[in-house]
């Protein structure tokens, strides 16, 4: 017994030593993985400093610098894999040796430190073997349910570089793509406006190749740019509607039209679209929504919507007496922008987080929400969290008004937030260090959710105030200019 005890203790020490060594090895791996991930992940590259609008040239160089890295790391990764594969068959023998050595060590009663030092040296090769069992470094952080929403950034980036370098994508689009990806341009309206402006520039800089028609060659010319934008961030409904509309007009251009005329025509079309579908529609909605704001109202709103902000400030300037409760949520805290802008206009505001909704809802008399899109079955697609607001409002019998221009109506049908959604950057939810090497933890960051029509009292559009379910009617009577119109 006496003899055995010390050995047991020793083994404990050994175990400790082993653990320490493991930790050290792990940290090394982490470092390597982090570095690798940095080079792989495009989102992490543009730092907040660079977020100001950079000229497209600089962007170009940035991309060029980035390019070789992933390839190198890939090659390195492959090499290491090969090495590991070589080592694998030897594992049992190495382990045996280890065990023998351990025993000898125990007998020698050496200092701990020495043991540790030795262990590290010995265990290292063993570690690489162990690591084979777990996927090394590249722990795949994907939530299975949302697998279809992830896109392979590495391959897409490479493709993009090809596109950008081939000079087929107009710099305006490159700039816009980066602005979208880095969330400088956010919001359905803002993205649509930026898209149309970029499109305008492209049109004005476009030259029809010889022996070709303007409309066809322009469509071809625009293809890579659209693909590029789609990889930067999926098109919003507003953008795709605007794109469809403009392309419908491009297709309708006569064959023998000169470049100048065509450009002028298209520019008019775009300007008109911006004016009527976005600006005037917003104005009409402002008027309609203001009629629904009574004196003494407490209006609850969620996050930031340019339209809701416009309605509230205009209502304030029309001497309506009301106060606003702004509900906000992580990770983007868009409500702060709303708060900032409303307070600047001297509107009375209260600011709470989403977790306090059920508490604060008892004080609200109306809920105003913005929307990303309205779907054909009457569901409202909005910033993630708005369906919760609507649900709580319904529970407290507070009428919910959704403000949305008709150009955001879509014929898509959707009943959950899973099939079609967008993923934000997971590191916005949680710092990267906390989950990157933990394969049991995957943060999920969804941008949108859908709200059922029975939670919504009315939709305020430029046409009228409507129930949600009348979206198909609006889609049907929408003027013929849209390519989607069915007779």
């Amino acid at each position: 017994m006496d003899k055995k005890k010390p050995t047991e203790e020793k083994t404990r020490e050994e175990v400790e030593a082993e653990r320490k060594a493991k930790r050290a090895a792990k940290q090394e791996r982490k470092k390597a993985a982090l570095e690798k991930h940095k080079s792989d992940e495009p989102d992490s590259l543009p730092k907040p400093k660079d977020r100001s609008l950079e000229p497209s040239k600089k962007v170009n160089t940035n991309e060029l610098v980035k390019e070789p890295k992933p390839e190198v790391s890939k090659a390195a990764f492959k090499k290491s894999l090969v090495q590991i594969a070589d080592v694998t068959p030897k594992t049992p023998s190495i382990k045996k040796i280890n065990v023998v050595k351990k025993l000898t060590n125990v007998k020698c009663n050496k200092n701990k430190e020495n043991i540790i030092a030795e262990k590290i040296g010995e265990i290292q090769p063993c570690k690489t073997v162990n690591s084979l069992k777990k996927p090394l470094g590249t722990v795949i952080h994907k939530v299975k349910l949302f697998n279809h929403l992830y896109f392979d950034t590495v391959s897409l980036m490479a493709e993009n570089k090809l596109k950008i370098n081939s000079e087929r994508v107009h710099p305006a689009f490159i700039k816009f793509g980066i602005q979208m990806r880095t969330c400088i341009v956010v919001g359905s309206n803002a993205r649509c406006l930026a898209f149309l402006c970029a499109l305008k520039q492209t049109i004005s800089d476009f030259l029809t190749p010889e022996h070709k028609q303007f409309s066809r060659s322009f469509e071809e010319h625009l293809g890579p740019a659209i693909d590029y934008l789609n990889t930067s961030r999926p098109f919003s409904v507003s953008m795709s509607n605007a794109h469809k509309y403009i392309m419908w007009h491009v297709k309708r251009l006569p064959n023998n039209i000169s470049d100048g005329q065509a450009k002028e025509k298209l520019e008019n079309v775009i300007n008109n679209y911006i004016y009527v579908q976005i600006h005037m529609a917003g104005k009409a909605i402002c008027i309609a929504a203001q009629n629904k704001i009574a004196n003494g109202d407490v209006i609850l709103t969620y996050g930031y919507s340019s339209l809701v902000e416009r309605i509230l400030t205009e209502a304030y300037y029309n001497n309506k007496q009301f106060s606003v409760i702004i509900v906000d949520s992580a990770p983007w805290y868009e409500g702060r922008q709303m708060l900032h802008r409303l307070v600047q206009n001297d509107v009375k505001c209260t600011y709470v987080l989403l977790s306090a909704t059920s508490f604060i809802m008892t004080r609200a008399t109306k809920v105003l929400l913005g929307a990303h899109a309205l779907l054909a079955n009457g569901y409202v697609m909005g910033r993630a969290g708005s369906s919760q607001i609507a649900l709580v409002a319904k529970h407290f019998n507070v009428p919910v008004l959704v403000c949305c221009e008709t150009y955001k109506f879509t014929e898509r049908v959707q009943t959950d937030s899973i099939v079609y959604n967008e993923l934000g950057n997971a590191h916005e939810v949680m710092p990267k260090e906390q989950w990157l090497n933990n394969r049991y933890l995957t943060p999920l960051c969804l941008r949108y959710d859908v709200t059922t029509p029975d939670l919504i009292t009315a939709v305020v559009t430029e046409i009228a105030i409507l129930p949600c379910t009348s979206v198909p009617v609006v889609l049907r009577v929408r003027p013929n200019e849209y390519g989607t119109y069915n007779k």
Partner: protein
Amino acid sequence: MLKQEVSQYFSNIMEKEPDVSASIAAISTLLKLLEHDKSETVQELDLNLQSAVEVITNSSYRITGVSSGCALFMRFITFAKLDTITFAECKKVMLDRGKVFLKKLTDARNKVAKITLPYFVDGTNILTHSKSRVVLEAMKLAVNSQKRFHVFVSESSPDKSGIEMYNCLKKLNIPCTLVLDSAVGYIMERVDMVMVGAECVVESGGIINKIGSCTMAICAKEFKKPFYVLTESYKFSRMYPLNQRDLPYNFKYTANNLNDNNLSNAHPTVDYTHPTYISLLFTDLGILMPSAMIIKPGNLLFSRYTFYAKYVVI
């Protein structure tokens, strides 16, 4: 025609012909005005008609459905091609169209009664609220077609219009019982369906009706009894109340109350019934689900109004 004459003519119809609803009275007043009008241009005529509508809506009668009826009338008479002819001819065309329109509206009630008939099953107990001409018409037709049913009529304070309804039903030899407003919950388990009229159908598919309808609708929903609304399509109105508070004051209160400026003690005369409580709407356009209200008469509401409204706004 002076404003006074307009108002007199309107109140004359309202008092002497109890069978005519306010909208019809308003429209016939407008027709009368059109006949006697001496204006020289379309603009002037339009202005005259507008001011007449204003006079009517400011009268002391309940005018919930009037504005929608008048708007429909104005739209309908100006729907013809009026560009190429002289103004006298133009007026004649308008007058003819107006008469056609009025006839259509007066026929609407019979149509509604006809499509409601199959819903009267022998031995049913029906609960109704206040006095509604459409409901009365439907019951009249049902009893004439040898249907046997029993009607419970709620008293409907404050004007006790339920008693009027009760008397009308008695005259028609329909077995009926007068119940208190507060007895709606008590009686609900005995009835098989609730049938009410509407002063106005709004865009959400809900109705604005005599106060107490909302209570009845909620009660019916809880007892799982169907809540049927009988209404003519000219009562469809382009507004969208969010809740009771959102109803316009001139709907909720009579002109006398509004003049007093003290509304805290005034009793509202109408309430808004949310579409979720309504089972079906019987109209001259057919039987509609309240949720489909906006879709089905889409031709009426949308193609005719929407773009009109759009141009007005923009």
